[in-house]
């Protein structure tokens, strides 16, 4: 059964891909829920295949296997091959499992959209691309998935492309990601130059012998650039807040749970390379910490329900980068998993609220929704507590493991630990602020809004994700390191950072981080349970800092002045001073030359047959004379 599942593992990718292709051709003609049900079935089946295939790993007797599907360019290690090991299995289960719930939610959320079928084409295509990325057995195939998820992200952000803001956001996401992809390509060239192959098998085992520290640092930093683009880290995070223009299930699936974690996966997968370069490690961790704090501060002052979650995602991704940078790979992947649960839940809950409020996203116009939509309110409350780090919810265990590992590593990482704690307090603050603003206090919505609980198709995924949020953390606790043992074979050859040993240390660490979380939680609860005039005054009291936070430090304006405008000017210069006169000039010049010669030569064509005959004889005589003179 299991062997069969591993032989059929390609189905994991093929099922959603087939779903996308099938719906592409017939999806528009199906009655509305059919397309969504088919897409959900495709990814659900994909999850089941992955689950059966992962069974040996759960039992602890599974071996990492490479499955060669098609030998494309064996000379450079670029084949269609799947690497099935605990890490890719876990990622597959997260992508398909959370993805399935989000697909189901989307059936309810996209109800009535005129391009309902098209939406599920893109969603399924995304799932197939993401699975290609995580199941790849070499960097070439990973790169293929990497680009494909970028494409799907573009298509889905711009799903409502008739809105200018959505089309612009999609373009921004794509262009910013190209910068990261540049790093990816150069990194892969360096890898190929050093190893002569792109296959994982030929790289990770030999990394220690082949790479010098300098080359390893270069590859690691370029990988970081790539990851910063895809996973929205400083300085390339600016596309993610704009990506909220896409439908909310897209934000949940792509911009919270799966695609944006690709960068974390890349670093964890390339652990053997980062192993050789402490510089790259510390850079990854520092970028992560800076991003976590930066984005958390912006999230505090947002009023758009999805913008808060967007900045929160960036901040939590920063957490994961801190973890993998400190070589606490298991902690990073663990947080990736729990974050997928509770952030998907938060986004879907936000979607449910937006749905109920007839597309209102401003939290100042919400309030008191708990009695109107109890399921959404309670599940989002659970997720809020989880991300704030309240035990025993999932977020507590994973966040605590990251902070503990940072503390245990010490030195500069100790500073990052403080940053992490600060971020944890801020996270608790803005998430509580959001929940209280939306679900507590006096109703502030307008007369004609009639908030109502969403249909079962939408609340069931919320409940499922809430359950995962509650129990998800127990896979890796100091009492039972299940995930640790599960992932151990993947990180066999590299040194890994663990949280400090001993119950006393655990209690101390947990105590500090829970305290930080509770401070944020209590502060926000106290501030925002009061009427709006009071907390508006409280926010105004924090000026001018509040204004900076609210406007996201005006980074977009900064980039506009320093990068976008000069870029446009350079493009204009290239177009009108180089392309037009030089390139076009050369092409047009050839045409003009031919015409000019033709103008002069055409007078020879008199149309008089006798003229031609005369020229013919003149030529013949000239030939004879020439032969006679040269004597040839």
């Amino acid at each position, binding site marked *: 059964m299991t062997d069969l599942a591993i032989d059929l593992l390609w189905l994991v990718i093929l099922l959603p891909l087939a779903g996308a292709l099938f719906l592409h051709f017939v999806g528009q003609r199906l009655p509305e829920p059919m397309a969504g049900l088919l897409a959900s079935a495709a990814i659900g089946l994909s999850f089941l295949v992955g689950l059966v295939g992962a069974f040996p790993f759960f039992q602890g007797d599974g071996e990492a296997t490479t499955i060669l599907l098609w030998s494309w360019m064996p000379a450079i290690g670029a084949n269609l091959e799947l690497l099935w090991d605990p890490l890719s299995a876990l990622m597959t289960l997260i992508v398909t499992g959370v993805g399935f719930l989000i697909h189901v939610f989307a059936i309810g959320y996209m109800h009535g959209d005129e391009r309902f079928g098209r939406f599920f084409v893109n969603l399924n295509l995304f799932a197939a691309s993401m699975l290609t990325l995580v199941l790849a057995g070499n960097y070439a195939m990973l790169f293929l998935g990497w680009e494909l998820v970028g494409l799907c992200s573009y298509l889905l952000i711009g799903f409502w492309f008739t809105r200018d803001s959505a089309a612009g956001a999609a373009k921004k996401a794509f262009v910013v990601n190209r910068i990261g992809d540049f790093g990816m390509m150069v990194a892969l060239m360096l890898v190929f130059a050093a190893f002569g192959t792109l296959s994982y098998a030929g790289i990770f085992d030999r990394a220690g012998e082949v790479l010098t520290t300098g080359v390893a640092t270069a590859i690691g930093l370029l990988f970081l650039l790539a990851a910063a683009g895809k996973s929205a880290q400083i300085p390339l995070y600016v596309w993610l807040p704009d990506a909220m223009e896409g439908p909310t299930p897209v934000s949940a699936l792509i911009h919270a749970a799966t695609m944006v974690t690709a960068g974390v996966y890349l670093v964890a997968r390339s652990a053997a390379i980062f192993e050789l370069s402490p510089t790259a490690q510390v850079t990854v961790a520092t970028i992560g910490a800076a991003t976590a704090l930066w984005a958390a501060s912006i999230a505090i002052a947002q009023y758009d329900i999805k913008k808060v979650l967007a900045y929160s995602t960036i901040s939590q991704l920063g957490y994961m980068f801190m973890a993998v940078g400190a070589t606490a790979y298991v902690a990073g992947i663990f947080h990736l998993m729990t974050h997928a649960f509770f952030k998907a839940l938060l986004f879907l809950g936000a979607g449910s609220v937006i749905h109920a409020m007839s597309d209102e996203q401003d939290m100042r116009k919400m309030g008191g929704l708990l009695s109107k939509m109890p399921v959404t309110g309670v599940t989002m409350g659970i997720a809020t507590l989880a991300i704030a780090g309240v035990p025993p919810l999932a977020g507590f265990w994973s966040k605590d493991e990251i902070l503990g590992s940072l503390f245990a590593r010490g030195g500069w990482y100790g500073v990052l630990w403080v940053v992490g704690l600060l971020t944890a307090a801020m996270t608790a603050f803005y998430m509580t602020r959001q929940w209280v603003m939306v679900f507590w206090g006096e109703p502030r919505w307008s007369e004609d809004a009639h908030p109502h609980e969403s249909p079962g198709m939408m609340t069931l995924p919320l409940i499922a994700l809430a359950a995962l949020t509650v129990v998800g953390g127990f896979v890796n606790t100091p009492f039972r390191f299940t995930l640790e043992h599960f992932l151990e074979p993947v990180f066999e050859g590299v040194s890994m950072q663990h949280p400090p040993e001993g119950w006393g240390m655990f209690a101390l660490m947990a105590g500090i981080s829970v305290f930080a979380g509770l401070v944020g939680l209590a502060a926000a609860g106290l501030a925002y349970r009061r009427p709006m005039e009071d907390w508006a005054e409280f926010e105004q009291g924090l000026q001018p800092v509040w204004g900076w936070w609210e406007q996201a430090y005006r980074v977009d304006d900064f980039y506009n002045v320093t990068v976008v405008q000069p870029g446009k000017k350079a493009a204009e210069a290239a177009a009108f001073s180089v392309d037009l006169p030089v390139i076009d000039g050369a092409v047009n010049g050839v045409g003009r030359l031919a015409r000019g010669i033709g103008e002069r030569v*055409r*007078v020879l*064509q*008199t*149309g*008089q*047959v*006798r003229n031609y*005959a*005369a020229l013919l*004889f003149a030529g013949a005589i000239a030939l004879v004379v020439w032969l006679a003179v040269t004597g040839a």
Partner: protein
Amino acid sequence: MTVIQFVILGAALFSFGVYGLLVRRNLVLVLLSVELMLAAVNINLVAFESMLATSELLGQVFTVFVITVAAAEVGIGLAIILMIFRNRQSANADELTLMRW
């Protein structure tokens, strides 16, 4: 009899042909001039063959070819001239400048 007399005859005949081709305006006469040149070539071929006396009789064989091709050429040429005359009521070469620039 030496070959030189035949070559002179051929050259004279060829020159008449060239002259006729260049100065005649009537297309039928132009075509006749071409025939004259071909005849000159045939005389040359036969003359040189009688001098060299190759075992394969190459000169005679070529002459037969030239006569055959010339017959075909005259057939087609006259047909074209006939069609031109029917269309334009004239066989004057100077008036046929339709294909000029």
